[in-house]
């Protein structure tokens, strides 16, 4: 029996070999290529990039393959890789107003300059299983049209012009970075947004949903949701100007929230903001709602005690890599702690039953 505790090393090696075999699955079925995952499971790739905080579709696809489709495991692989990369510098803030949108919708205006562009969305699809996909065969080509060259200014800018929405002046200070500094509270909005952008989609979604159901309700409308490519520019000190270094796909959501005013702020619309890598609109909308909920203090609102208003609660529990690691660590041996609990329970029980026996004896006498 003592041997059972030994041999941990061999057990680990064997487990890894078995895992590799399970990952490949039935060898008579063709192996998935990383390119197939990148192209055909693009939304999974996007989620891994967003929560992994690393924009690299090829690496995300590789991580998904290695993780057997477990997206949190894939995010973990990306995070662990990302943290080893040297920091060469920071880009300039991207201009999402100049985004080349594949999709751009507003729920607050029927039409706006640049128009409503549905883009590749599941919205309005009937969720019926398409058995044609189970058969092989080429799909018909979707119709194409020339993109409208007109600019697509941000919807909230129109409200801003009339002073109907709370302004969001540009800040000059460098935002904090929770991947380089420990999270300390109170966290400013930039830090909160960073934490939410990396946060677990399910967690952020549920937090956002809870605000809609009345736990810190903030009456959101999707002012605008846009998905598309933006260019990334970086200042090169040797050159003295910024150069384009690449392009990333982003999803941006700005909510317009009803606001009746408070002790410190006049009645006006307020904003929630979400920005995520890739086409990840459920996450971006959720993020915007939670962002707005967390702004209660600066807007002079009441703390209703709702979970989504509690920055410490939200920020400390949004990260799925921290959460899953700590949750799953209870699989590790704990027999030393358990043993000490056993001894304690036995001792307390022995004392209690001795006291009971003494009391019974006394009653009998």
């Amino acid at each position, binding site marked *: 029996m*003592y041997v059972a505790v030994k041999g941990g090393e061999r057990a680990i090696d064997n487990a890894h070999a078995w895992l590799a075999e399970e990952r490949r699955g039935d060898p008579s079925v063709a192996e998935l290529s990383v390119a197939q995952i990148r192209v055909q499971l693009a939304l999974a790739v996007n989620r891994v990039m967003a929560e992994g905080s690393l924009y690299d579709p090829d690496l995300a696809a590789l991580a998904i393959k290695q993780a057997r489709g477990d997206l949190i495991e894939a995010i973990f692989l990306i995070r662990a890789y990302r943290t080893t990369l040297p920091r060469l510098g920071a880009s300039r803030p991207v201009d999402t107003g100049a985004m080349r949108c594949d999709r751009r919708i507003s729920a607050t205006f029927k039409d706006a300059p640049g128009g409503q562009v549905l883009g590749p969305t599941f919205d309005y699809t009937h969720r019926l299983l398409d058995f044609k996909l189970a058969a092989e065969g080429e799909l018909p080509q979707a119709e194409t049209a020339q993109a409208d060259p007109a600019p697509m200014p941000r919807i909230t800018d129109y409200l801003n012009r009339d002073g109907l929405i709370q302004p969001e002046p540009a800040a000059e200070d460098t935002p904090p970075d929770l991947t380089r500094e420990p999270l300390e509270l109170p966290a400013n909005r930039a830090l909160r947004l960073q934490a939410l952008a990396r946060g677990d989609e399910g967690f952020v979604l549920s937090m956002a949903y809870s605000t809609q159901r009345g736990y810190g309700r903030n009456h959101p409308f999707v002012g605008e949701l846009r998905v598309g490519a933006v260019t990334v520019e970086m200042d090169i000190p040797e050159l003295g100007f910024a150069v384009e270094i690449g392009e990333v796909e982003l999803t941006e959501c700005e909510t317009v929230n009803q606001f009746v005013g408070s002790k410190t702020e006049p009645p006006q619309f307020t904003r929630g903001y979400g920005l995520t890598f890739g086409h990840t609109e459920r996450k971006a909308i959720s993020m915007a709602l939670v962002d707005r909920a967390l702004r209660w203090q600066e807007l002079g609102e009441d703390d209703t005690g709702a979970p989504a208003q509690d920055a410490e609660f939200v920020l400390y529990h949004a990260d799925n890599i921290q959460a899953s690691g700590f949750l799953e660590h209870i699989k*590790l041996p704990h027999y030393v702690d358990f043993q000490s*609990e056993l001894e304690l329970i036995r001792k307390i029980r022995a004392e209690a039953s001795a006291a009971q026996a003494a009391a019974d004896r006394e009653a009998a006498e």
Partner: protein
Amino acid sequence: MKEMDQYNFAYLDEQTKRMIRRALLKALAIPGYQVPFASREMPMPYGWGTGGVQVSAAVLTPEDCFKVIDQGADDTTNAVSIRKFFQRTAGVATTEHTEDASVIQTRHRIPEEPLKEGQILVYQVPIPEPLRFLEPRETETRKMHALEEYGLMHVKLYEDIARHGEIATAYAYPVKVEGRYVMDPSPIPKFDNPKMEMAALQLFGAGREQRIYAVPPYSRVVSLDFEDYPFDPSKAEHPCALCGAEHTYLDEVIVDDDGGRMFVCSDTDYCAARRAAGHRGAMAAPYEEEETAG
């Protein structure tokens, strides 16, 4: 040297190690105080020793001899995994002998063999905040430490006595370091608490919670108690079935379908050394063969 070339020595880059060392120095200057540090994502999950691993990575030098224990044993799976990690990324010598190790990373135990000057004991810490389960908010607990406001903890210990007749904390038993900070000793059994006044340097790393703290050699480490209910570092009242030791912390092992059990040293190295020196417990003989085979 093959695999080492792919990584910096001990995996972390030098800038990160520098950041961790600064946190360690601050921690040593303020014994028991939790220093926030920018914990990195390690290639093992949070909760599996990432804090200890980062501290070890920051203190290891190529000349070090490294030992890893989990639950007192060198051969539990996670101890094996962490030892392998540093073999691969730092190429340091490793050992199972407490005496030979210069750096010992541990989860949930302090070795039975008293540690010496020059040795470093690195603890893996899941929840560094001793007040966490009394007050869930970090903003509040930091304030309580700053004001040395530990009344809540004493009330908890008092309520334990009122309810159970004794302090119902068996592991992660809170201590006060150098008369100032109340500190979580990590989930070691309270049996190990008195050993914390030791000649070796004790470093604590909590990766997920982003905290480092430390106890310098020979610091005063007092387990919280009351005059009329003094601290009691109890353990199972059995001798080790293999080596016969009566002064060591024991694991209880179920040995048959009828719930039969035996008690053995949780510190496997200590137990093996005793048996090598000729000590025999009640159940030692039948297992000798397997030991030498293993």
